[in-house]
């Protein structure tokens, strides 16, 4: 609005004035017109004042001390660039195991479970428990010794091959030998404790 007014009045517009300043060349009008010269001087003065104010503001903010610190900081950073990186031992979270190990662990777990299942299945099929096959026999023997044969047990298991006490005596002898071989005190310090522990053979003798 102001520039239009100036132009109408026959003076340089603001843009023309700025162009004259930027190019550093004074137009013929500016040479002749006192009012425009004043405006031009005022423009230069304004810019000069702002330049000084801006310089002062920046120089007050960046004091010589601050600049010295800045320079030393730059040089320190450059020096650090040349040094090899040092990794500090710092408390950190447990490292996640690589996927290969995790897969391996999984296989171990699966193998253990499979082994357990196979073992149980084999155990059921073979029935290797030393007393497993004798419980029924012992029950029928007990009842037989009372003079009352157990018809239900007999019908369920069919005719027994050997129901006489001879079989039990054989089993007991075998177990006794086995226990003597396996459970004998191997550590002298535990011998006293071992002596206090009841044996299967003692129990069997009591039963008998």
């Amino acid at each position, binding site marked *: 609005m102001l520039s239009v007014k100036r132009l109408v009045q026959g003076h340089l517009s603001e843009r023309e004035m*700025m162009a004259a300043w930027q190019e550093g060349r004074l137009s013929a009008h500016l040479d002749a017109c006192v009012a425009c010269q004043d405006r031009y001087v*005022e423009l230069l003065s304004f810019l000069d004042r702002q330049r000084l104010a*801006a310089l002062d503001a920046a120089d007050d*903010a960046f004091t010589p001390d601050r600049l010295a610190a*800045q320079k030393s900081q730059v040089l320190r950073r*450059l020096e650090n660039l040349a040094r090899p990186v040092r990794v500090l031992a710092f408390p950190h979270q447990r490292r996640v195991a690589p996927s290969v190990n995790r897969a391996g662990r999984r296989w171990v777990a699966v193998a253990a479970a499979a082994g357990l299942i196979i073992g149980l299945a084999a155990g059921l099929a073979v029935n290797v428990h030393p007393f497993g096959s004798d419980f029924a026999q012992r029950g029928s023997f007990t009842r037989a010794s009372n003079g009352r044969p157990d018809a239900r047990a007999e019908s369920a298991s069919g005719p027994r091959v050997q129901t006489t006490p001879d079989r039990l005596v054989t089993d007991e002898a075998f177990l006794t030998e086995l226990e003597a071989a396996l459970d004998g005190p191997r550590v002298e310090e535990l011998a006293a404790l071992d002596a206090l522990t009841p044996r299967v053979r003692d129990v069997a003798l009591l039963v008998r």
Partner: protein
Amino acid sequence: MGASQSALATVGREADARDASEVKRLLACGGDAEARERFAEIVHRHQRRASRIAYHYLRDVAEADEAVQDAFVKAYLHLGSFREELPFEVWFTRILVNGSLDRIKSRARRERWLLPRTENPDDGSSVLDQTPASGPSPEDALLASERQRRLSAALGQLPDRQRLVFVMTQVEGWSSKDVGAATGLNESTVRVHLFRAIRKLRKLLSDEPETAERERAVR
């Protein structure tokens, strides 16, 4: 830019070219310590000017300080890509301006999501506005401080590009061509930015006592 300033600038550019090529040579032959010492001279020669540009562009002392440091480190690391046909200060200022622009963008993103930071809860003015001025007397100091405050406030209202162009041309005395090379702007665009910046500043500072007096006298 006056004749003496121009001569100084020429001498400075020659020294820059000499130092930069020497640093490059030292780095190539493994003389890191000597290269850093030589680069320290470049830092010393440019840090004040760089700090002024960054300070007025970013309007924060600490951030400007960091931006200048980053620019020097980046310049050192990429000195191999520096070609002597471009003045070192133009090449370096381009690094500085790009870094500062990234910081402005990052700050804008932060401010979009976080609450604005008020540095002085009493009047809300920034540290930049409260920068004390040096002067021979308390009155002069007060006037200078007031002038700085008003200019800072007015500069703060300019768009980033206009502010940068104004500071580089007016405060640092760069030519439009060099400003264009450093900012990646066309020379005529630089002139337009400068024109708009000055016009807006004059409008914003028109109620300044000295300006008002002069304008009244002209009318």
